[in-house]
């Protein structure tokens, strides 16, 4: 089973103090710590586990500058066999569509039975690249995958739906799956893994290798344009629960349940 995993190198924004940069369309990135996108981390782990069970190869692919190599090296250290980085100044400003186009241009020429990506990226949260890529490749796909089981020629996946529902689909391979966090427990990077990763090469490709023209990539090839990015004003809204401790506990439980949190 040959698997391609799409990964992104994103700033860790969950706990950082974010500021909007001077363009008003992006966050101020200086001082932020970058790492593999959390969802992609699970996708990579899933791919490596499949490979360890069934044999085959795992290729990690990303679009980005040299800094992104650290995420690729992490993938290699965790068990990926090959890594590809697509880079070109013209790729700057690509939306999900243009990103999928660029990935598609390379992945279509790779042999793969399975394409895995994270459900979404922690930075823009658009959750669209996987779906568009599947369309471009002409393969079936499923999103929000929290369990993946391979059969002969097909895969059975569990999808996590709203309200605590779960759906099982059987899908023909090759296929693309966008995985949720929690599908597995990503392993730690080991020192042995790092040593191996350092011996593997990261293949760097540019616009010319994609066979695309400038019109299809970057802002020119994007269908969406960011108008403004801002921090919404803080609203003070809090609901105070009243009653005996037992009553309050019941209300909290109901609230959590109604939002699908438990």
């Amino acid at each position: 089973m040959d698997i391609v995993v799409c990964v992104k190198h994103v700033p860790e924004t969950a706990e950082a103090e974010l500021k909007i940069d001077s363009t008003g369309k992006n966050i101020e990135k200086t001082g932020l710590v970058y790492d593999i996108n959390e969802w992609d981390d699970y996708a990579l782990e899933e791919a490596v586990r499949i490979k360890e069970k069934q044999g085959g190869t795992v290729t990690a692919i990303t679009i980005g500058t040299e800094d992104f190599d650290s995420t690729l090296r992490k993938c290699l250290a965790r068990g990926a066999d090959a890594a590809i980085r697509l880079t070109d100044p013209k790729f700057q400003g690509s939306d999900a569509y243009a990103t999928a186009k660029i990935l598609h241009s390379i992945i279509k020429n790779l042999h793969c039975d399975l394409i895995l990506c994270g459900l979404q990226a922690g930075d823009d949260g658009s959750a669209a690249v996987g779906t568009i890529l599947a369309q471009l490749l002409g393969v079936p796909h499923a999103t929000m995958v929290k369990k993946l089981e391979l059969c002969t020629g097909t895969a059975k996946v569990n999808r996590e739906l709203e309200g605590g529902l779960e759906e099982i689909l059987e899908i023909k391979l090759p296929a693309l799956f966008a995985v949720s966090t929690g599908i597995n427990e990503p392993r730690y990077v080991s020192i042995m893994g790092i040593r191996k990763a350092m011996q593997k090469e990261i293949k760097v490709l540019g616009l010319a290798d994609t066979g695309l023209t400038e019109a299809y990539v970057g802002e020119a090839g994007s269908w969406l344009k960011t108008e403004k990015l801002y921090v919404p004003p803080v609203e003070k809204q809090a609901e105070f629960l009243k009653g005996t401790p037992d009553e309050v506990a019941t209300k909290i439980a109901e609230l959590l349940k109604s939002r699908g949190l438990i």
Partner: protein
Amino acid sequence: MEFKLNNEQIEIKRAAREFAEKEFTPELALEYDQKEEFPLGLYKKAAQLGFTSMRIPCEYGGQGYGVLEDCIVVEELCRVDPGLGVAVSLGNLMVPDVLLRHGNEEQKQRYIPPLAKGEKIAAAAFTEPEHGSDITRMDSTAKKTGDEWTINGAKEFITNAPIADTFIILCQSDPNAQPSHRGQSIFLVEKGMPGLEATKLHGKMGIKPCVTGSLCMSDLKVPDANLVGELNKGFYYTLELFDGTRITVAAQAVGMAQGAFEKALNYAKTRKQFGQPIINFQAVSFKLADMTIKIEAARLMMYKAAWLYDKEKPNPVATSIAKAYASRVAMEVTDDAIQIFGGYGYLADYHVERFHRCAKITEIYEGTSEIQKLTICNYLQKQT
């Protein structure tokens, strides 16, 4: 000159950091700080990932890196928690080092791989109740009869003594040698040999998950095959060992300082007094600036000593400079961190007082700071 880690070292640093951040949870750190127990599960986990055998060559089951890479790992582990960090990383430091340099092939094959893999734990016993800084004479004696040695004596403050499987013990093998340090030898001893008894020490100020104990050797019989290296060279082997391991202690100190500093910086940004974050007060922000300066200097000294060790040759002066300075910085920075936390810093639940308690050990073991200064002074006196 290049002031940056290479990609491989950056990956090592990140891997160690991620491991420690996930595994050394604040709750676990507090629990082990209270119960004074060795975190065996954590040690094994860290070992399986290679973090505890950085300096052991690949052919003996280790990772084949140098002191610098080891220090990078140790700094990150101690940055997240000083107690668990030291406990996990200290065990494999000394015994493999001595064996690799002076052990015969059979000793290396037999004793190093299980340590590298985390299946066994080691202890290195030099200090005695009456001989700490001055190990030029040992009260523990080794007498030879036939092809066997009989060891008698006591060792004090031995890291891992109560849980170790493999020991090296420095003994006076020739009581009449002049000067006495020319009559010392190192022996390999295994747990369970009749005549070897370990007792756990309680009530340490810090690094509580790293267990310490005393050893009592009474008519402990050791085969001649367990002599490490040459007879009567033990003292020299010990000093040579410290040239490297003291850099690792500097790395512990830098990690502890860095960890406490980061906590203090965060706290200073969020704690408000007089209507503003306390970091706005220069008395607080300058403290943070001073902490930054000291940590940076200490880290560079540690890197330099490690770099010299790996790339050129061990440099005892650079090592002593790094250890003496980094350990002092660790004390000062962890103290400042408590101060920035105010009353909360005095509470265990805020996780800075533990850093201060742990930092103190770095000024004591593997040669006190005074002994580091002696090394530096000896060098200065020889300069013309």
